[in-house]
């Protein structure tokens, strides 16, 4: 049947495309993981090769015995999860207000809330430090988490999706006497899982990748975060490339696992099919 062959051909094309895209996306990650088995100077060797000449297993095994590293991975995950949770709550509420509610000062509040998106980190780095130090927040988990929770970009993103939420449903709920809170919690939040997951991932990675801020604010070794710890393998006089790659690969694993778990929520929401 021609129908059949056609769909089969489509399937083959899809597979080929999928493999090609996946390959080009995964290659650098594979290179990082495999470079973790190389000797330091071999990582930069020409010609380019993926496989190590000599397998240096100790680059990886050493990491498991490196307690500051392991602590940092765990602690950074913990911080990132708390950060993500708080960030979702704070930003989604504000996003809802800007997408749906009306009040006199809205225009000014919007400018106030969106402006921070354009503030270069460099401009307020030192003064932010002065602020957190005045607030006696240095050397706490809070100093890593709290200052970044309210994120204009994240709020803006959620607002853009909330804007697309059909108003009809909400109007119906209003007529049924639901409060704004109920509408937000019962209609917007459950119907925005994909958005929450995407924002969540971004927040998580933002926390995870923080480098300068933890270095500035944390001197207590037990609170050390992962990026500053990874930086221990880098210096411009000859990084320990092999160990850097191994440590980075291992540090990426928890993130990949979280992604595997949450990617399935990035699917079509029920809301639109439910409306029709």
């Amino acid at each position: 049947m021609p129908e059949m062959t056609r769909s089969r051909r489509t399937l083959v094309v899809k597979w080929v495309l999928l493999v090609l895209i996946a390959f080009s996306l995964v290659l650098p990650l594979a290179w990082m993981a495999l470079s973790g088995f190389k000797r330091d100077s071999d990582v930069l060797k020409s010609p380019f090769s993926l496989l190590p000449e000599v397998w240096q297993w100790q680059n990886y095994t050493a990491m498991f015995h490196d307690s500051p590293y392991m602590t940092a991975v765990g602690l950074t995950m913990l911080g990132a999860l708390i950060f993500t949770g708080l960030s979702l709550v704070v930003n989604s509420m504000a996003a809802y207000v800007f997408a749906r509610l009306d009040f006199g000062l809205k225009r000014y509040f919007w400018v106030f809330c969106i402006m921070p998106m354009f503030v270069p980190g460099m401009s307020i780095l030192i003064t932010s430090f002065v602020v957190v130090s005045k607030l006696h927040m240095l050397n706490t988990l809070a100093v890593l988490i709290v200052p970044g929770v309210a994120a204009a970009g994240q709020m803006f993103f959620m607002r853009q999706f909330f804007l697309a939420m059909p108003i009809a449903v909400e109007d119906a709920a209003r007529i049924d006497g639901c409060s704004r809170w109920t509408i937000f919690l019962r209609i917007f939040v459950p119907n925005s899982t994909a958005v929450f997951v995407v924002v969540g991932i971004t927040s998580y990675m933002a926390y995870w990748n923080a480098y300068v801020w933890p270095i500035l604010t944390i001197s207590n070794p037990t609170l050390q975060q992962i990026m500053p710890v990874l930086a221990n393998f880098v210096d411009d006089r000859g990084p320990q490339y092999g160990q850097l790659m191994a440590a980075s690969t291992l540090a990426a694993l928890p993130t990949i696992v979280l992604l595997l778990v949450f990617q399935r929520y990035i699917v079509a929401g029920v809301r639109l099919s439910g409306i029709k």
Partner: protein
Amino acid sequence: MTPEPMKGSDMKAPATEAATHRERQGSVTAKLGETAPPAREKRAGSREERRTAYLMLAPMMVLLAIFVIWPLIFAFRQSMYQGNFYKPPVFVGLDFYKYVLTDPGFYQSLKVGAYYAVIVVPGGMLIALLIASFIKTLGSRMASFMKTTVYLPTVVSAVIASVLFKIIYADQGLANWVLSLINVAPKNFLGSPTMVIPAVAVPGIWLGLGITTLIMLAGLLDIPDSYIESAQLDGAGFLKRTWYITLPLLRNVLLYLFVTGIVAAFQEFLLPLLIANGGPVNASTTPNLYIFNQFRAATPYAMTFSITASLLLFIVLGTVSALVFRLIRSEKAVDA
């Protein structure tokens, strides 16, 4: 300075917009027109609504006030003083604004930032759109696989990506090896002022691809299948469907990606620093790298200068974004 939000009153569900849009193209189906929710009349909210609004906004406003606005005001104040905390600071007024604005290096860095943004933002969005559209056509298992795969580059840090791409661009690196296969002479990727920004943009796009694709995908998944199906029935191919239905419906998402993409690209700093060290001859010195270079000297002058330069960058970014918002809004006015 930043433009006002699209207010509730002039907001419409994108579905309606798409319908209007298609009406103008003269290819609207009656069905679409019906399913689109009606535009909503709205006036200033009730008292209860206002209270809810303030309550829900409070955490965000308070946090931003403490951790962004307060430091920002401090920073503006600091840009008018020169000092190093050991001696009483000297009031210099707006001198440093003059210094930055008369430094050709500042403008050069803005140009570099713009060039980088012009490649990375549309390039990244286009590739992400293609991949997201592809994922949407896949069955759930293949889609799951792709959703994870596409995000994998993001877990590679900029530091590592830089090491990799430096090797790729080296004299006997992968890039020149590929060129040699098609008989092109070896290129001096990082030594040529014209090629260095595109060369740095490749890892830039690649690192950002994961999240951009997932955002696009979330947007695409928001579009009811019925729209696409009816267009398919009308005989519209992929390109036509994308142009007339998908893109207009994705407008909110695209606006977001565009504005945040520009802001992020202008501020890119690690990749050009680590891959090309800002060279050759500042050809890859982005605004933040320019500021960082000023900051390397630990003098009071350097500190005030770098703070002033980054505040000016803030004003530039805010203005550019305001223009983008305005453009999109005016287009909308035409549309409606």
